């Protein structure tokens, strides 16, 4: 089969590799019909994730049809149309029972390695670092889905493949980001990052009752899309100081909640930003936590900072003193997938949520290298890119 393999920083190739097979009784094999690139794929692509290995198959947002199931998968059958999110979860542990699937105790075969880095192991995930299991990803013609009875979610009639792929990751991540803000009537929510997750977080914040949503980014078309499709206010961080702008827009209070939907590759302004990029390039620091720093400084006293942009390893310049002195609540998690996906597919089917406008590009899988380059450079007004198989 064809698969998009990582060959080193900023280098991917479409390779012919062996077809996957059922390895465990709860596995399924899915023939992929549509897959997409996520912002966190760019962290792997750029070589910023420790534990990547050359030849790893990338991708963690995909949908398709089941072609085979293991002996213990009883809720799926060949031919079923399913969507699969990034998280692999067993469904039987303490965390899965509490709907926190990205914390699953039992799905990471390299848990021993993750424990060295994080103290405890998170769930395994597709197309990511070997710290998260090194599972082959979804940018491929066929994918083995472990614990498929939990993680392969049937797509209802009336929901297209494009809508389903958006419900795999970016929409549940955005929903989780907004839910972590504990939004109250009258709240102003600032969303840092106008990528697909940021847009979905802004959409979710509105659905959960935010009075106003302010989106912060530097890419004009992404800010324009937030204005047009979400009726959000916007701040261009290249044109104004973000903290000052957000305080000004809230008459000095600051947003009640700030969502960091950017993560480790934030672009800081001026010399400060160049300094951060230099440190990350030299491997001195894993992250460029500029958006997190600004979120903490801008958030109102007693507010919530919700972090869904991906981070790894260590970060300098996170103003914990400000967070403490302002009595902030910091909440963060990897997107939980599974049950959230099912609920969001229903919401899409009922037309309560539809982020389809985010899809700006559709390419064949053979153009993966060009697709990654374009998505990384935010070229051609690219917000969300899908690969057809």
């Amino acid at each position, binding site marked *: *089969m064809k*698969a998009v*393999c990582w*060959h080193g920083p900023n280098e991917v*190739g479409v*390779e012919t*590799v*062996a*077809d*996957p*097979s059922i*390895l*465990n*009784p*709860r596995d399924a094999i899915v023939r992929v019909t549509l897959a997409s690139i996520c912002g966190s794929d760019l962290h792997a692509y750029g070589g910023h994730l420790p*534990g990547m*290995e*050359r*030849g*790893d*198959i990338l991708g963690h947002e995909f949908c398709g049809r089941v072609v085979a199931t293991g*002996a*213990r998968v009883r809720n799926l059958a060949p031919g079923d149309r399913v969507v699969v999110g990034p998280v*692999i979860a*067993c*469904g*039987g*542990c*303490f965390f899965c*029972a509490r709907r926190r699937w990205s914390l699953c*105790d*039992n*799905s*990471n*075969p*390299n*848990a*021993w*390695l993750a424990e060295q880095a994080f103290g405890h192991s998170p769930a*395994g995930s597709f197309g990511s670092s*070997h710290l998260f*299991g*090194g*599972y*082959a990803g979804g940018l*491929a013609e066929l994918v*083995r889905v*472990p*614990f498929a009875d939990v993680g392969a979610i049937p797509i209802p009639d009336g929901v297209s493949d494009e809508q389903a792929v958006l419900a795999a990751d970016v929409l549940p991540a955005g929903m989780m980001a907004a839910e972590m803000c504990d939004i109250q009537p009258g709240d102003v929510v600032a969303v840092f990052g106008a990528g697909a997750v940021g847009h979905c977080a802004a959409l979710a914040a509105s659905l959960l009752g935010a009075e106003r949503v302010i989106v912060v980014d530097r890419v004009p078309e992404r800010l324009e899309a937030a204005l047009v499709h979400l009726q959000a206010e916007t701040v261009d961080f290249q044109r104004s100081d973000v903290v000052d702008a957000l305080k000004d827009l809230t008459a000095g209070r600051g947003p009640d909640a700030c969502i960091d939907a950017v993560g480790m590759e934030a672009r800081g302004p001026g010399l400060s930003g160049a300094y951060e990029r230099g440190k990350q390039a030299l491997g001195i620091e894993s992250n460029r936590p500029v958006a997190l720093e600004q979120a903490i400084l801008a958030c109102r006293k007693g507010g919530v900072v919700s972090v869904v942009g991906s981070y790894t390893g260590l970060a300098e310049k996170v103003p914990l003193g400000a967070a403490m002195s302002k009595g902030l609540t910091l909440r963060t998690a990897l997107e939980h997938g599974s049950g959230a996906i099912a609920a969001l597919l229903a919401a899409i089917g009922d037309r309560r949520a539809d982020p389809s406008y985010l899809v700006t590009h559709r390419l064949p899988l053979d153009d993966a290298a060009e697709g990654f380059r374009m998505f990384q450079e935010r070229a051609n007004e690219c917000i969300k890119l899908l690969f057809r198989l």
Partner: protein
Amino acid sequence: MDMLHSQKLTHAVTVQRSPEDLFTAWQNPREVSGILHHLSGRLRGDVEESEAFAVPHVEIVGLDPPRRIEWLARVGDEARCRGATEITPGPPDRGTEVRVAVEIDAESHLIKRALEKLRGHDPVLLLREDLRNFKQRMEAGEFPTTLGQPSGRRTFIGSRLLHAVQDRLQRAHEPAPRSATDGAP
């Protein structure tokens, strides 16, 4: 077992199953043999690779229902480890705590012991993996694995050390005397 070179290990896990289910698993010698597969079969650096994967024979040498089991594991005539398992209910809604204390005949030479660790034979790591696998089997009904999945690797140079440890830990399941669905919830 040479008590002069014995090493004491302890590890604990919390499992989302009832104390009765877990006690039932541990009081069955065949089950214990599977649970301790990594540790009891692979303790000594001088064993041949084929023997390293040998299935240990386990004797239950003490039972104190419903919470304590004492056992002894042998490969051939050689005692490889002995220990005790304590099973106690956790705090409300937190599952059941399983604490294992093991005494093993460990390599006494510091350099040899360090080399064993590099080969993935660190007894501490092996005991942790054994109990992690036990938890996975009881909660998920199978062990997660990526062995046999496709990739587009072009060369073998890279993270070889990572692979060596990963392969050792995962391949140990293959000859294990148990079904992947045994003990499924």
